[in-house]
């Protein structure tokens, strides 16, 4: 480890030096014109001349569909899926031939299921076809669906508040939300807060994303919508301390669950992943117990979703996945592999921007929607 660092530095020094020299020799005789800065205006002059809208008066117009019925998985997906159904319908008409199998595999790959998982599913269905008496390709979709549903079945998709089940002392349960940047962690917490409040759960929000500009403001707006208390720290504050304070505040208020936001981080950033492990540890330092660690994954994510699931699971012991943005044209097929390879189930699905657009995952509907 130390050796690697020492050598890395040495290597970078050598290589950089040689290239700098190389480049300079190459450029000898060349003059590089400095950028034209004649029209640079003093920023402060300009700033003073600009009337910016008063921050406090900004009204956001996010659709808050308080009275809208909770959408069904299938309803929401129907629009996005129509193109797919025609495509698959075409494949499965007629007899089974090698082209059918190829088309089947390709359909799964297009849904981001991934080459390895697609091949596995295809082989499993092939084995069934060979063992049985299936001759009409029209029967294949049902077989594929059954295979997919089977792989996605048997997982506990409930969100636990049972602190005793994980060996915790009485006190608030903590649901920690983790994931890469831009997947929708804050929005998910906002929606989930509303849902839990409606269900009669006492909630406290922890604005643990102290890194991204205005992340705490964003969560605060959600907190106001659901009228739940929020604990936040200064921008750049230690996220662990924010979550710790939120837990203690929840305990004092006798709240049931702390929904803890964290800053988005790419799973390859070791330091940030360590920071996340620390947030999880500190969340349990006082009266709190982490009963759910939810990895938020964007449905548009491709095969990198597997790397995300793996790395986050390593760092914070992920208990479930929230699959967001499934109302778009992306299919979120990577969660199949996350279920089967890591044993981590999808627990919630995000189907839109409205406050009610967060629903339970249902494997039958998910698979149906894939092939409808």
């Amino acid at each position: 480890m130390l050796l690697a660092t020492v050598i890395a530095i040495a290597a970078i020094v050598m290589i950089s030096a040689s290239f700098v020299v190389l480049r300079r020799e190459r450029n000898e005789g060349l003059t590089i014109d400095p950028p034209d800065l004649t029209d640079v205006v003093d920023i402060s002059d300009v700033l003073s001349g600009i009337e910016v809208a008063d921050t406090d008066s900004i009204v956001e117009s996010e659709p808050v569909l308080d009275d809208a019925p909770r959408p069904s998985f299938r309803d929401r997906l129907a629009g996005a899926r129509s193109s797919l159904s025609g495509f698959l319908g075409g494949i499965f008409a007629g007899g089974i031939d090698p082209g059918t199998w190829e088309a089947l595999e390709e359909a799964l790959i297009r849904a981001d299921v991934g080459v390895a998982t697609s091949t596995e599913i295809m082989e499993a269905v092939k084995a069934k076809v060979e063992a049985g008496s299936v001759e009409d390709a029209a029967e294949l979709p049902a077989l594929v669906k059954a295979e997919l549903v089977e792989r996605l079945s048997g997982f506990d998709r409930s969100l636990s508040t049972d602190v005793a089940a994980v060996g915790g002392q009485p006190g608030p349960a903590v649901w920690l939300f983790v994931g890469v940047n831009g997947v929708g962690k804050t929005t998910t917490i906002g929606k989930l807060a509303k849902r839990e409040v409606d269900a009669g759960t006492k909630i406290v929000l922890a604005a643990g994303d102290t890194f991204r500009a205005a992340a705490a403001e964003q969560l605060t707006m959600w907190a106001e919508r659901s009228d739940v208390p929020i604990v936040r720290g200064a921008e750049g504050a230690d996220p662990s301390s924010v979550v710790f304070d939120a837990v203690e505040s929840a305990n004092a208020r006798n709240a049931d669950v702390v929904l803890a936001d964290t800053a988005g981080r790419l799973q390859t950033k070791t330091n940030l992943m360590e920071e996340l492990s620390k947030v999880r540890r500190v969340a349990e330092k006082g009266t709190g117990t982490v009963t759910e660690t939810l990895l938020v994954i964007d449905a548009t994510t491709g095969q990198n979703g597997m790397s995300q699931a793996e790395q986050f699971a390593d760092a914070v012991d992920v208990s479930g996945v929230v699959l967001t943005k499934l109302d778009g044209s992306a299919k979120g097929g990577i969660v199949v592999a996350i279920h089967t390879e890591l044993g981590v189930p999808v627990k919630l699905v995000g189907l839109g921007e409205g406050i009610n657009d967060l629903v339970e995952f249902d494997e039958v509907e998910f698979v149906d929607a894939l092939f409808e």
Partner: protein
Amino acid sequence: MSEPSSGEPAGCKAILTDWRRRYPDPNMFETLSDRFDEIFSRLRGRGKLTEADVDDVLREIRLALLEADVNLDVAKNLVGRIRERSVGEELSKALNPAQQVIKIVLEELTTSLGGEAMKITYASKPPTVVLMAGLQGAGKTTNTGKLAQWFKKQGRNPLLVGADLQRPAAVEQLRTLAGQVGVPVFSEPTDPVDVASKAIAEAERTGRDVVIVDTAGRLAIDEALMEQVRQISGQVQPDYTFLVIDAMTGQDAVNTAKAFNDTLELDGVILTKLDGDARGGAALSVKEVVGKPITFASTGEKLDDFETFHPDRLASRILGMGDVETLIEKAEEAFEAEQAEEAAARLMEGTFTLDDFLEQMQQIKKMGPIGNLMGMMPGIPKEARDVEIDDRQIARIEGIIRSMTPAERADPDLIDGSRRQRIAQGAGMQPGDVKNLLDQFTQMRKMMKQFAGFGTKKQNPKNRRGKNNKKGKQKGGRRKGGRVTEKGPAAVPKSPLTLPGLEAGEGLPPGFPSLPNN
């Protein structure tokens, strides 16, 4: 601290461990470049390629592309083109077919990724208007800030426009970023289309020569919101419309890009989150389907982690040849050339002191995270690239060295048990850590010296530089700096890029195969 989670039944860590045991094949998550590395190492040394070989390679290439999230149709096309060229007459003429295939793949990848880098020109009548569009969470707001910083560095005066009135606090986020860059923001809580058109007038009035409009994230299938962004575009008549797309995007990247291109006539793409381990196949897909260049790449969380996209760099990175150009640019920005040369010379000579080491560490820190730098270095075997290099290690190393006296830094042999104790105390570390560092440092020094000796012997024994540092500074330094590169061409004609020191010292497998000159 208690460990409350230990009571959990089969946690996913256990499952993960089990899973890793079941799938020990590290290829599952290797990067595209490693994949090609592997394929090509199999081809290497063969005199001829049979048709079956080509099929083998192509199947692997297709698989690699798909695993990298390249769109299926795009992958098929690319493989088709590679096949055509590989089995064509070009190959029969080739001296070394493996090299030929590598060259073809590299060329096709580069072409697919965009040929030449895009150049931003400015409207003759300011302001130059830039519109940012994309899905939710792609990084539009962050990259609006980064782009502002970029324009500012070009000597321009951007005005940022907060037209994302959808996401709570999006305008707040933009204001914070703008504050960091030092540019103004225009927004008002009305209607995104109004805001955008008023912003242009505002820019004209206040003399801002670039306007960057941040819009709300929207799904490509949301007709109402797509119509809204079309109206914004109609109002502001952008000179550049950028689609912001996440490097981690899967097969759907193509649909998104197509829909936005149909609605907005994109001029370019900003590829974000490239600093992760995403293989970035989405970039290939988007470029291929929409035919618009990837203009910028966002490579980190800081405002400065934003650069002009260079297709050739990503292509060579995909092929495991390192991202040398970026490395050079970073080095040029960070290093005092003379200093670095001197340091490199002393490294090879074995007279590199801990002071030199400390100094060079400071320079390197300016270039960004070490892990990223290693990733850009050519010829670094996968094993070395995979070693996690924690930048906090640097802080620890620094702490130790700074706790030494100048005499100790110049001559580490001085450091005995009691000195070690004192240094450890000063740095807040264990004496063992100090010993470790000194051992590693000595070992590194030896290794580098060996490397230098090896290179000299092989090349030209007389070139071995004299012991006089001062003298070497001017002429010798340059020659020495170049020696690394002189050595390279023996193995790699175009990119002088192998790191024998690493290979020899760590017993690592050889780096990238030799490449033909283009």
